[in-house]
């Protein structure tokens, strides 16, 4: 049992963090691992979308998220944060980008700063899992193009029409009941039936 370290405060990441880090295979050990990740994080900040092996992408993603959240929390006038940014970003002009471009971009967001998407694999032969790692709000076209909330999509049109049809049939039923009996108690019972189906967006 350990006590939580109280000397440093960190902001919570909005991504899943594994209980243990991955040892990215490297002859130089932990130092080599950090070097690899530095390169990846630098590339991510620079290009905003990169494709690489899944394991490395997931590790680098965590570091990139931490770096951005530190930058947001402390700003560019905080010496240790500046040091950290200097360590992680191998190309020094990216430090400027981190504080002046990415921090304003993500300051008000509620989501994670990066996205990790599994990339297609080759069908035959040996393969390693590939992934696409990208910063949110990048200028490239969206990879996940599943915008299903468009009302004009065919499935939504069909479901909407079905809903209207159902409502209309209910209204007709009520109208018939009124015509038949004129009894208020029956009306109430039929009004209580709510429309159960909503157009679900697949």
């Amino acid at each position: 049992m350990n006590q939580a370290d109280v000397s440093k405060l960190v902001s919570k990441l909005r991504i899943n963090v594994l209980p243990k880090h991955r040892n990215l295979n490297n002859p130089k050990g932990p130092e080599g691992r950090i070097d690899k990740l530095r390169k990846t994080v630098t590339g991510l900040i620079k290009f905003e979308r990169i494709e690489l092996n899944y394991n490395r992408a997931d590790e680098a993603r965590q570091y990139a998220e931490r770096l951005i959240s530190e930058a947001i929390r402390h700003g560019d006038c905080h010496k240790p944060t500046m040091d950290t940014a200097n360590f992680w970003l191998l190309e020094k002009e990216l430090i400027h980008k981190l504080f002046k471009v990415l921090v304003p971009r993500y300051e008000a967001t509620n989501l994670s700063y990066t996205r990790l998407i599994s990339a297609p694999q080759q069908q035959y032969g040996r393969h390693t899992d590939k992934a696409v790692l990208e910063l949110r709000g990048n200028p490239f076209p969206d990879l996940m193009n599943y915008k299903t909330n468009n009302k004009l999509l065919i499935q939504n049109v069909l479901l909407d029409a079905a809903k209207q049809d159902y409502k209309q049939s209910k209204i007709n039923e009520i109208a018939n009941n009124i015509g038949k009996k004129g009894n208020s108690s029956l009306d109430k019972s039929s009004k209580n039936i709510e429309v159960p189906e909503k157009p679900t967006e697949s």
Partner: protein
Amino acid sequence: MALAIRRSTSEVFGAAKWFIRRDCRALSTLPEKAVEVPVEKKRDRPVVSRIRANARNPNLALRHVYPEFLPDPNPKWRNSLREKLERTDMLNRRKQIDIPEFYVGSILAVTVADPHAQGKTNRFVGICIERKGAGLRAEFTLRNVVDHQGVEVRYDLYDPTVHSIQVLRLEKRLDDKLLYLRDALPEYSTFPFDMDPEILPDGTPVPVNPVQVKLKPRPWLERWERQELQGVSNIEEHLKEKDRVRRELRKEPWEKYDLMKQYRKTIPIEDQNDIWAEVNHQLKQLQLTRKKVSRKRTFGVPKTQLG
């Protein structure tokens, strides 16, 4: 935050003080400082970042005083229900006995029930060299030298057999753990059992004792030279060239930039805020009642301080 500000009753009246000060300033003929204007302007700017707003929670300072209220950061052992139950248990125990604020480096006197001792209690005085564990399993280790023999006793903080925990001297040392006292000269961990408690005035920050201990010659229990200790003065005297070379080889300068390693060791701000919001009120209440009791006691027996 290197130093924790001592929490006291004065804080409760902090708001009142603030009003009084402002009123005085308004009544006085002196103009307000021109410097303060831009400060207020900055405050007017809307805070967009939730991260920064969260980090500004004043409750977060409690983590230094009550570190055991934070759960173990290892996700293997996290269980929100168990943690919550443990916190209520801890608060209940704190209602029974006074568990004071103390740090590694403070000198404590602990009285525990001991069926074999005279008077059924056993009192031990020593310097706290380590604090460990989270929740009900929180523990601390006291070290003293009794009859030229180093003695260490490990106590559970919420052990029901503990009768009282008294802080004789509240201070911090330069390091987080003082395990190197085991290899230091015995005078650094010798404390008399009849020490008087030293009372700090309210509101003063916890003092840091900058004393640097001298280690005995090797062999040591650990390789202290590799741990970058601040509180040891003569470590270089005992090293051979071989040790220095190996120390250089073993250095991990990248470790302080390993953001995820730090992250996995701590509880994030957002989670801490929830925990402190849950226990803050009761902890404050406990502190207030303790203060009242102790004030009564000091007024009741003024002569003991003289003698």
